[in-house]
């Protein structure tokens, strides 16, 4: 069985937010859109985004690291957001493991978002349905796009090539290989959600006689 996913390489992510806005740009006019914005030109502008880039600081000066941390829906293999949905709008596809919301079925009860520990769902207050990363399902199978463009918008945009898209159940996929070779890990493993998206950790390369 296929499980499509993103592998995010924290070793090279520079935190540029390209994945954030390219995602918004593709999806707002796509089937998952629109992704509305409130107060777009006023105080506290706030909008629907499927992907965010956060920043963490590790350690204290001068041994500080800054880690940029992109996060979208992790397309969990055991997605807690699915069974709780009373309407079946929130579902995980058999064929490729993508977790989606069917806007036509969603009653906007928000229950799925309570069940997601990752804060990966965003409610569209205007059309009153739950929205989230679709793994760009309307790109990746689109036969009218050239083959090399049948990838999520965020993956295509990423200047650091820090986002790898692929089938993590296929041991030969680049995604699986990178997870294997670079100690790819899942977020909040203690929760047993088995996120399909994986993260590759930082690797520090030291100089020859760098004792620091």
């Amino acid at each position: 069985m296929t499980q499509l996913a993103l592998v995010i390489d924290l070793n090279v992510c520079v935190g540029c937010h390209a994945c954030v806005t390219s995602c918004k740009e593709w999806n707002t006019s796509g089937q998952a859109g629109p992704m509305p914005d409130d107060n777009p030109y006023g105080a506290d502008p706030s909008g629907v985004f499927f992907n965010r880039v956060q920043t963490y600081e590790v350690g204290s000066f001068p041994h500080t690291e800054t880690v940029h941390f992109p996060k979208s829906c992790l397309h969990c293999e055991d997605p807690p957001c699915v069974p709780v949905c009373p309407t079946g709008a929130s579902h995980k596809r058999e064929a490729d493991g993508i977790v989606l919301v069917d806007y036509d079925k969603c009653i906007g009860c928000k229950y799925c978002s309570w069940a997601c520990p990752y804060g990966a769902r965003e409610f569209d207050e205007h059309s009153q349905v739950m929205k989230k990363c679709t793994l760009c399902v309307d790109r990746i199978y689109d036969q009218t796009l050239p083959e090399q463009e049948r990838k999520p918008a965020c993956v295509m945009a990423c200047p650091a090539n820090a986002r790898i898209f692929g089938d993590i159940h296929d041991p030969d996929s680049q995604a699986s290989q990178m997870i294997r070779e670079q100690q790819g890990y899942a977020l909040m493993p203690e929760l047993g959600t088995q996120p399909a998206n994986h993260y590759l950790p930082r690797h520090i390369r030291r100089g020859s006689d760098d004792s620091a």
Partner: protein
Amino acid sequence: MHPAFSVIFLTTLIGVGQGLFIALNIGQVFDLARDDINLGHGFYAWGGFLVLSFLALGLIASVFHLGHPERAWRAVTQWRTSWLSREVIVLPLFMLIVFAYMLGHFNGMDAEQSLTLGLVGIIVCFTLFVCTGMIYACLRFLREWATPLTVVNFILFGSASGFIFAAAYAGWAGQPELLELFGEIGAWLTLGALVSRGWTLKRNAELRARPKTTTQTATGIHHPEVRQTSMGLMGGSYNTREFFHGMKALAVRRIKGFFLVMVFPVTLALLLAGTALDSAFLVSLAFLAQYLGLIAERWYFFAQVNHPQNIYYQQVG
């Protein structure tokens, strides 16, 4: 979590309805068992009407929680997996039974029929309590909720408030024996709720000290000092609105204090006075006090939950 008022009203109102329904049936048992009590169909019929009204009000409140109430019917489809779906099935079912109960009494159905309907109703009523409680208790990661105590609390609070309401109802209906009876049961239920809610509070306070999910597990960065410096957005988003109550710690503590005082001592005092003096008015006050307290209790029930997603939304930068 950000407390949703529609859900606060839904759960508290149907709780009263459910408790009241149980009380009516207990009342009927007494009615049958004791010669000095003779209530007549009107009491049950109007009682059923009141139950139905509470349930209906709760239902209306819940509709405001939905973005698309016109599609609410779809919510019955996932009963295999979703407690919410189950609730959506059980609540109308319960209402149907109550409706039949009410209609039956208006049409003078006999005691046997009433008790049978009542028994079925009580089973469904408890099922409803379980569904409502499980909606919260089944969310494993929301550790403040993920305990059987959640279901127990729902049952005890609903029943207590329902019995106290029933006591007031009996009082106004000129049934001092029942006022006393319901009042006493209501008091015991309130005390039971005090124990289970108290236990829950203690349990949850301890949970905070032993977080299972931390910034480290959330990011996979295993270092004792990991701090978020930016959540990636500044003007707020669904994630910063839905999962944070947005109140200062002091305000939250005051709300907790308010509910603890209102739901327990104030209610009990008024209730004891009411039953002792046979005052429907005081018992009504007891109900009002408890209900207000329960709104605060339910608010706190949401607010206390520290959703693991909040780890990702700590800092604007």
